[in-house]
């Protein structure tokens, strides 16, 4: 079993998983029932986890697994279950909103096409250290080279938390 064998396996797995990702994400936007749509989103995120594992980024994979699949999407599902999902409660969108949606989507399409054009010229990125995704290395990188962005993002999260607490407590005073 040479190196080529594994590369081949990896490539075909990658294509298969990539296909699944796209397939499920299309299902997310086409599903009629919002709860089904969330469930497809969960599957999409699961395929992302597999992508991370294929790239040997175990920490990212598991964090994606815990945070996105295990917490955020549970909350999505949670709120969706509480909303009354009758067909007649679906608001009729005015023409302007539809137009804005089509316009925005078109612009995104153009931007993506333009960026794709420039990507074709560059060389594929080659990872210097294949074990970069392991916890130990990732931790060292995070707390040395990227310490400042890391701490700033934590402050951002803290401010979001404080804001949430503030919003939650304000209600009780007025009521």
């Amino acid at each position, binding site marked *: 079993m040479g190196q080529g064998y594994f590369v081949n396996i990896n490539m075909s797995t990658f294509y298969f998983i990539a296909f699944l990702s796209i397939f499920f994400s299309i299902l997310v936007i086409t599903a009629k029932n919002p709860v089904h749509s969330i469930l497809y989103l969960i599957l999409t995120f699961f395929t992302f986890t597999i992508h991370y594992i294929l790239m040997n980024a175990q920490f990212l994979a*598991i964090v994606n697994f815990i945070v996105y699949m*295990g917490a955020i999407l549970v909350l999505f599902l*949670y709120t969706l*279950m509480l909303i009354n999902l009758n067909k007649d409660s679906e608001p009729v969108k005015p023409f302007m909103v539809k137009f804005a949606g089509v316009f925005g989507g078109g612009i995104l399409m153009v931007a993506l096409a333009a960026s794709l054009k420039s990507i074709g010229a560059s060389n594929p990125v080659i990872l210097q250290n294949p074990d970069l995704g392991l*916890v130990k290395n990732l931790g060292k990188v995070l707390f040395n080279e990227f310490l400042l962005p890391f701490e700033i993002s934590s402050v951002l999260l803290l401010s979001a938390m404080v804001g949430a607490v503030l919003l939650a407590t304000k209600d009780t005073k007025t009521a």
Partner: protein
Amino acid sequence: MGLVDIAFKFGLILIIFLISLVVAMYSTYAERKIAAFFQDRIGPNRAGPFGLLQPLADGAKMFLKEEIIPTNATPFLFIVGPSLAILTACIGSAVIPWGQQITIGGHIVDLQVTDINVGVLYIFGVVSLGVYGVMIGGWASNNKYSLLGAIRAASQNISYEISMGLSIIALLMLTGTLSLREIAEQQHGWNWNILRQPLGFLIFIVCAFAETNRTPFDLPECETELVGGYHTEYSSMKLGFYLFAEYINMFISSAVMATLYWGGYNYPGMDWMLAHTGPTIAPIIGVVVLFAKTFLFIFFFMWVRWTIPRFRYDQLMDLGWKILIPLAIANIVLTGIVSATLTHFGY
């Protein structure tokens, strides 16, 4: 990795899977028997000697019950719910080190299915995934009580996952690794983590009760308020899967607690044992020790179940958010200060 190693691996997976199932089966028996002892009764004693065949009879009964899918349920998701519940319960055992490396006929075998370097996080991920089975099942039943049970399960799991994670962080600050194998190796002999992290363990075990939906936190299936909670509409083996998943979860979380805090397969005098009995027998004793610890925790789960009444829902949330999380953060700070001071003074 040779063929023999792969064969050993598959054998190990199969054995662990079977053990999980058998332990879960006999947990139902143990639960009823222990409940009986706590209430001055005898418990099941008709099927076989001491009622030992009771789980088999229960299983046969479960399989023979009528399969009901409610008219207004979503049939596919209704089946996916219990399947997911038991799947997530079973895959948690993959990273638990059941014993040291054992030598069988010249082959060195790892008594762990896989030693990934993020083992603790893997367990965490599997636990957080476990709530989907409950939520999907509860929603797909199209029943108010099921939905309420599912929602309770979701909010409870998310709330307690936070303090569970924070309590583990304090432990990880001491171990410096996420691999369960290394954490187990560090606790060689008497050097158990419980001695260094008693508060962390307390928070962890409370959260484990909440995550496995055991009394006093069994609000998702609270009979007095919600009929049967999320599995109100379930019957036959689909119900069996839900109940089974709960017991497997209990087994796995007991094993995790034993590994993280109570020394795993380590026991005092293990070096003497290794020197005197050789590399085949000594690891087996370690496995037995780990199982003994696990069973003690399962017993503790049951002991608490038959002692403490169920929490009210707001009390549950208060405990999770207002007490356990600040306590866990305080534990982290304390651990940091103490370990920094100790390193400073050269210990």
